[in-house]
């Protein structure tokens, strides 16, 4: 087992090992609003959902500016929880080749998103007029 002497980070199984650990510890189906937004963006972009595109989509639709670091960390976390799957593709930008990370909503992710959004929708049912009147009254 010569490879055991390698630092953990350099271990070929490092990525999946980490995923497994996290999966056992962070359980449950709850996702926050930021994650919902990310997941909807991934869903909307379909095959084109790479990191930069997700960020641009969110900025275009709701005007929220997200740093690449925030986007990737959150997507990583969602991946660790099994809600998205990623793959890495080679593309060219201008004349230069670069790699992009593409995300896809997993079955589990679709269920979680549907449930979270459903919960929110159910809680909000019929409340919008009252909410609006509060805003206008202020």
């Amino acid at each position, binding site marked *: 087992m010569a490879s055991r002497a390698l*630092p953990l980070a350099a271990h070929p199984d490092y990525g999946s090992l980490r995923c497994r650990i996290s999966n056992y510890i962070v359980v449950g189906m709850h996702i926050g609003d930021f994650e919902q937004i990310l997941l909807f963006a991934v869903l909307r972009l379909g095959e084109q959902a790479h990191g930069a595109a997700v960020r641009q989509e969110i900025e275009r639709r709701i005007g929220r500016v997200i740093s690449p*670091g925030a986007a990737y960390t959150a997507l990583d976390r969602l991946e660790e929880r099994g809600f998205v799957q990623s793959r890495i593709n080679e593309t060219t930008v201008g004349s230069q080749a670069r790699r992009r990370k593409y995300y896809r909503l997993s079955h589990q992710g679709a269920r979680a998103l549907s449930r979270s959004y459903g919960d929110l929708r159910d809680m909000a049912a019929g409340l919008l007029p009252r909410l609006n009147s509060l805003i206008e009254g202020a």
Partner: protein
Amino acid sequence: MRRPPLFPRLLLGWFLPLRDREFILADLHEEYAQRTRDDAHRTSAYIWYWRQSLASLWSEGRYKLDEAQLGVPGQPGGSWFGALHQDTRHALRALNRRPVFSIVALLTLALGIGANTAIFSLVNWLLLRPLPGVTGQQELAIVEISREVGQSNGISWPNFADVANAQRSFVSMAGYGGADLQIQSDHAPPEGIRAQIVGGDYFGTLGMRMQIGRPINAAETVAGRPAHVVVINDALWQRLFQRDRNVIGKTVRANKIVLTVVGVTPSGFEGVERNQGVEAWVPLSIEPELRHASPGLAERLNGRRGGSIREMVARLRPGVRAEAAVEELQRILDQLRVQYPNENKNLAQRHVFVHPGIGVPILMRERTFNTVRLMLLVVSMLLLISSANVGNMLLVRGLQERSVAALRRALGASRNRIIGQQLAECMLLALGGGLLGLLVARAFLALMEGGQLLGLPEFRNVPLDWRVLAFTAAVSLGSGLLFTLAPARIVGRADPLVDLSTSSTRHTAGRYWGRKSITVAQIALSLALLIGAVMLTRTLINLQRTELGFDAERTAGIIVNAEPQGYQSAAMPALRAALLAALRSQPEIESAGLAHQIPFWTGGFSDRVRDPLARSDQPVSIDVQFASDGYLETLRIPIIRGRGLQPRDWNASQGNPVNVVLSEQAARTLFGDRDPIGQYVDQDRRTAGPRMFVVGVSGDSRLGQLHEEAPVLMYVPINNSPSTQLSAVMRARTSAAELEPVIRRALGSVDPTLPFQFHAIAHNVRNSLADQRLLARLLAMFSGLAVLLAAIGLYGILSYMVDERRREFGIRMALGAHATGIARLVGTEAAGLVLAGVLLGILGARWLSTIMTSAITGVTAPSVALFVAASMLFVLIATMATIVPTLLATRVEPSITLRQD
């Protein structure tokens, strides 16, 4: 394609987890490239990149924190936030383990950082603080319409109004010019203050809200429609009204005109130039009244010709460059010249200058910039040296700890973690050094207290404000990164296979080229500083030894400006005679005389005369000192031939020649070896003035600049002066400082409404060298430290080398090498370092000296002898630093050393 800024890229590369690093960097890069396609957005793209990088790091850190709270174990090689805590603790332990190392490193850093902080806080205090009450200061510019930069010839009010209406480059512009006011409230005697005459919306252009009341409106400044209002500043409000909140609507008398106070400026405001002592602002429309102008002068002040608005302050429209504004204003001026050909003839020689930024007078800007650059350069050299020293020390530690690092790598620590720990240790040192540096800065500032620079007020209680703290933090972290690089590389490269199988004694000569180059750089920098310090000190000593040509002890000068109280030129002779008589009647005054120019205080006149020997057609330029009898005697300027000025010379009757006295230099320039007594000198003018008849020759004396030749000077009887300024010199029987009340008494008997300014001449002479003295003191202090640090550095590397090569020396000695041979070995090593350092240092000193000559008046280029002497001194110091390591090398005991392996 433009590359994104380096530093955030490094940070990202350093701290982001491997997993996403590539994608985040590539995304950022791509978007940055899109944003910089348009040149106009370069700055905003730059800021964008920084913001995104920091936000990315931040969210990464937050994620780690969440993970820790959720109980996910920190992953090795993962992110930085969880590791930071651990690294910091590790670093604290490591520093604690070697207290001597830590203290020396901290002190060394504190010196470097402290010097930088001190100088920066001076610069901050003098130049960087925003002007009180001014908003959007960076968009403001000074506009000048002049023959040359800084002459401020100005334009008339109607021209200014036309320009201001026609231009589109500025959001708004307003004119201003200096004025002397003699101001008094109900019960106080008049006091002379500096004021500004403003035209247009001056306070609006500055974006200023009054502390109380309102500003002067543009409508009130229109020439020909006088509005008797005044805005005063905080200090004057205190002096005249004791900060009475009901001051608005009260009246003051300024130059005998009643003005209503309409506003008080925010605390500390002194006009658009810092530290210039302007205390009141009056509208342009009342300038003729304030100057008690004759109808002719009033016409000139209000008409389309002549100059009245001398400088303008303007707010540039966003996106408009200064060059574009210059072009536009020049075009408008050309149109005005065509439109009013007769009135605006003089505009032909005027040029437009737009100087972005306010706060520093135009003429002082270059010198200010040079001086500040010199000071910052010197202290950053010192910081480099101290960082290099600490880097050197850490490098040694790094080499020693390679095996430890290698062991930890073998146990599974990632390279990043090992570098991270090294970095944390250095950052702790840097922060500690920064905190100590603040104390050191306080000490440096205390040493400089009372110093003066660039003619600005004395340094008193220079604050360490947030700008200084931010600067110190940046410098500390910067120096931290600087001295971390090399040791971190070494430790980071530790390889279990190599470093665990060999003992440290295998590191021989080739290994420490890094340390050698650091030492060479240190020697070079400190030698350059040393030469600079010697140069400046020598200059200062030379200037202090310069013959003044007069005796400044116990002498004082006064200046009285008679114009504001309504005196016209015709009334001056009587006033002069009365003042001189009054001064002479005081028992405390030994002797007194009138003169237009007080030495080392005010400026004077100069004139051009024809060559009396007709050797050439070129006129001779000559300085003119209008003086009365008693002036030369009071200052003890000797009469060398003929006689001095006498009371009967005061008023030459019409058509008769004017009796004058020449200085030796003037006599030599005009008459060569001939006797000038009884000769005539003629002004070089088309209209014939009176001829001048030389009655005497006096010794040379300096009026202002110590570093220039004695002036070519002609003493002309005082009543020929066109000025309404009244000034006198006098010698006290006891001391000059006691004369002020005496003069008040004497002047009160002539006209009690006349305020005066008073200076002891010896004090002014000393002050004329304030810049040189302060900079010499700084350089001496800093170069001393630099030399000390360099010597320590040299000592360090040599003793380290001796220690490393102990085994080699042992073998050599066992094989029969003599102690002198070993000493020669060490000596050669040292000599090589010192020689390289000295050569580089001489190059550096040459460069430093060019900057010094441009920053400080009177500094001359260094001589070869100085270079040689400083180098020799350095070699001497280096030799002393070498002695101990060499002795250590010769004491190597082969039997003991070889047995150790």
